[in-house]
């Protein structure tokens, strides 16, 4: 017999990176006895190495904690963790949709950051009850009173309601649990209605297939239930339902209001899309739960193996990553310069870096990644509109009427003193000012409308450096707009290098071309011949650099004691040379293909 619905609480934690979400989660697990203190490896919820290193959560988790409250009753608390990066905003919104409430964790010295704010707004839209928690009150620079004031003025929650906590020392953790029980509503939902369960995450398990994380809103789910995905349309038979404590533990059923997992011989994460509604095949619900959206990649790049013999391995590795990452899409791509590879779509640049790093680390592949691009809509003379995610696919200009680029609504929270620098940055990136709102203390919320393509490169790093790390950002897609866009080609010794083409604004083509060829001159070693580097728009050269021919390269002294050293150097150089890509007779190192990313603007 499960816990009565009235004593279930489903909640998640909203926090900025480093504000102590994982530590607080650890303390909650300890305090409820879900995990004994001695079993705690630091930060149980972040399981992937990469996550722990980067301090971010990539995959959400859900843990069920039994809790006997001060009123003497036993409660079931479900903590649903959310991914902590702007690339995964949609996943966050689905995890929040599975809850009735959220803990808003704010660092007692840092205050509220942009991403936190964006997630708070999401939670409010979903009618979640919010419990503000001011964390790290044990630190000397903590200003809990000021931060509580900020919470009141920015979010509109009375400062008296802020809980003062140090997740590190454990101070105030008991109050957090009591607040969850007392302040958050119990889930509503009728067991007898047709099944409606929200998929808020899933993961691939090599032995059991796809493990689907669900929140049941109506009806019941147990093994043997025939289920249907309302958007994905697949039909499956449930083999097992259970919950996480924190390991997987089978239960008899998941009833309305409960959170847990199901296993149903689903072979592919694509068949259980985050945000989709699960219903019963025999007695389907008439309407899906709101908010489903097909997760679509925002950033595209080519991935090519350095050693072309690794192509089959790269394919296999991508297949395996995709099992667990529904947002990753890829298709074969051929480049004259780089050979066979894959055009991959990512949620954002961080997602791209994570995939790249996992491919290199877990699959031991060495890759060349081309400059990331966004997807453009091209209106053709024949009335068609095509979407391209690779600059090389841009049709001949004579067939093109206009090119539309995706734009985003960008929100930045920053101390006022950095406003100037940040607004300048937004203007440089073709941003259009929308709104500026001063908040309590010295903070400001800045809203801009700007092209997605302008923020995928180094915008975030620039934002951080121009605000000494204090500004934070969040963005969401805000439609397409036609702009004066052109394809900037790079020619090496007269040969156009497909993998180096980018789409840029006409007004920036020359400047960008100059920076690009200058950067390439730095990374391409001198060759036996002079090499011309050109940037061109529609056949017209807009920038040029020349790598002079190598004139002198010979060791002056090579006697008996120098031979081993010389041989080892040659062996190393030979290895380096064999990894370079050839364009015509020019050898180009890997870094050159990433030159676009390492330009100083």
């Amino acid at each position: 017999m499960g816990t009565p619905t009235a004593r279930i609480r489903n909640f998640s934690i909203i926090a900025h990176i480093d504000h102590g979400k994982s530590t607080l989660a650890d303390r909650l697990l300890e305090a409820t006895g879900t995990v004994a203190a001695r079993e705690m490896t630091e930060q149980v919820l972040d399981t992937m190495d990469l996550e722990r290193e980067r301090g971010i959560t990539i995959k959400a988790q859900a843990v069920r904690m039994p809790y006997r409250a001060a009123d003497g009753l036993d409660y079931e608390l479900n903590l649903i963790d959310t991914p902590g990066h702007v690339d995964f905003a949609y996943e966050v919104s689905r995890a929040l949709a599975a809850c009735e409430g959220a803990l808003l964790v704010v660092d007692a010295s840092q205050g509220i950051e942009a991403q936190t704010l964006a997630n708070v707004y999401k939670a409010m839209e979903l009618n979640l009850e919010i419990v503000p928690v001011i964390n790290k009150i044990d630190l000397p620079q903590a200003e809990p009173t000021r931060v509580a004031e900020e919470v009141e003025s920015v979010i509109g929650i009375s400062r008296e309601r802020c809980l003062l906590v140090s997740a590190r020392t454990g101070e105030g953790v008991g109050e957090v649990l009591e607040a969850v029980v007392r302040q958050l509503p119990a889930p509503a939902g009728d067991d007898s209605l047709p099944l409606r369960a929200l998929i808020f995450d899933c993961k691939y398990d090599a032995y059991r297939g796809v493990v689907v994380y669900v929140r049941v809103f109506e009806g019941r789910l147990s093994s043997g239930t025939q289920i249907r995905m309302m958007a994905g349309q697949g039909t499956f038979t449930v083999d097992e339902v259970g919950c996480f404590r924190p390991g997987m533990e089978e239960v008899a059923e998941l009833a309305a209001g409960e959170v847990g997992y199901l296993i149903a011989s689903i072979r592919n994460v694509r068949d259980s899309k985050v945000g989709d509604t699960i219903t019963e095949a025999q007695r389907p619900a008439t309407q899906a739960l709101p908010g489903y959206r097909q997760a679509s990649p925002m950033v595209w790049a080519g991935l090519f193996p350095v050693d072309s013999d690794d192509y089959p391995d790269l394919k296999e590795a991508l297949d395996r990553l995709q099992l667990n990452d529904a947002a990753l899409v890829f298709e074969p791509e051929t480049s004259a310069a780089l050979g066979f590879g894959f055009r991959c779509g990512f949620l954002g640049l961080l997602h791209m870096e994570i995939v790249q790093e996992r491919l290199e680390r877990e699959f031991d592949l060495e890759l060349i990644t081309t400059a990331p691009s966004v997807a453009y809509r091209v209106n053709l003379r024949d009335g068609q509109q095509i979407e391209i995610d690779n600059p090389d696919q841009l049709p001949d200009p004579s067939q093109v009427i206009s090119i539309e680029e995706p734009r985003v609504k960008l929100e930045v929270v920053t101390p006022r003193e950095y406003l100037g620098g940040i607004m300048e940055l937004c203007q440089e990136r073709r941003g259009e000012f929308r709104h500026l709102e001063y908040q309590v203390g010295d903070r400001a919320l800045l809203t801009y409308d700007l092209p997605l393509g302008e923020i995928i490169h180094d915008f975030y790093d620039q934002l951080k450096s121009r605000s000494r790390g204090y500004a934070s950002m969040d963005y969401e897609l805000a439609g397409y707009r036609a702009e004066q866009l052109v394809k900037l080609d790079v020619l090496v010794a007269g040969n156009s290098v497909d993998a180096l083409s980018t789409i840029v604004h006409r007004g920036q083509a020359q400047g960008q071309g100059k920076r690009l060829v200058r950067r390439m001159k730095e990374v391409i070693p001198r060759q036996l011949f002079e090499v011309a580097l050109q940037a061109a728009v529609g056949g017209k050269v807009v920038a040029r650099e020349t790598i002079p021919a190598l004139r002198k390269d010979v060791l002056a002294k090579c006697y008996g004691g120098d031979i081993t050293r010389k041989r080892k150097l040659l062996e190393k150089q030979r290895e380096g040379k064999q990894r370079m890509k050839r364009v015509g007779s020019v050898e180009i190192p890997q870094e050159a293909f990433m030159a676009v990313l390492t330009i100083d603007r």
Partner: protein
Amino acid sequence: MTADDSLAPPRSLYIHLPFCRRRCAYCDFAISISGPDLQDRYLDSLLEELHFVSRTSAAAAPLQTVHLGGGTPSLLGTERLARLMEAVAAGFSMEDGCEVALEANPEEVSPAAAREWARLGITRASLGIQSLSDPTLRWLGRGHDAELGLSALGWLRESDIPQVSCDLIFAIPGQSTGTFLNGLDRVLRFEPDHLSCYELTLEPGTTTRRLVDRGRARPVAEAVALEQLRSARARLLAAGLTRYEVSNYSRPGCQSRHNLNYWRGGTYLALGAGSHGFLGGAAASALGLPAGRARGVRYWHFRDAATYVRVLGQGSSGIRDSEQLEDSQIGLERLALGLRLTEGVEVAEAQLLAASRRLAAHGWLVVEGERVRATPEGMEILDRLTLELIAA
């Protein structure tokens, strides 16, 4: 010459004498700045190693060359040098006309010293003149001036030592092309048999490198260095010295036979701190080095003179480590070294020959049958050409 010949028993012996009065600003060699006490103990240890090696089968073949390198071998003094030469003669058989070369610095050269060296059987003296500009010599941290350099060259020339060579350095920060060529001309008036003309290499950890890295000395522009190299070559040719290696010029028959053996991929024994040797598998085994099935083994000694002495005192050989070479590595070395010689190198593999012909089409190499050699233009970019060939 086939690869098998080159791995014949060693006919060359290198002996390292690491002592110097001071460390020159450009030097990263295994040298030691210490007094006569360590010199004596070092010589004892060196002779101990010599006795050990000379009793093995690795020392069976008569020597064609003995090279006393440094450091500053001339610093050793006549008595110690006599002890060393006696030990070499007693331990090894030496072919008639065996080349016995001694590296010397001007400070130790005198008519009397030159006489002694000739008496002890030195057939070739190699003098470190380096430059004939006093400010440049000071900048290089040398302990002599131009005048002493030239005097020393004169005394050696007048002595009974059959062959005299000297070293000059170009592409030195602060020394103009005119000053360098003027110095070269003054040296050539003494009609040396052999001249080594090196571009200054800014080795990591040296004073000169630090000065350049910190902007306290301006590195010589590539074009200037090339101009100095080309002008020097022209003057040397005009003076009757032919280039036979990247940095080495000689009158006919006066090449350094010891060094030629290195560049032709030959084997050689080595004694003393920091010295490197190269042996065929059988000879290496005879020295107690792990050889496995390798056709060639390179080995090297402890670099530090005091460590070398201590290790020998503990009854072990002064060898620090060795490496077994695969045939492909031997091939790579032979190609890289052989191309440094104007005579070039025999290349058997079709792929290498094809790659050589491609580079020959640009005038960097000449291919005659299976022999490949670099042209003067090719010599200037030889390391890159070698890389092109081995990566082809």
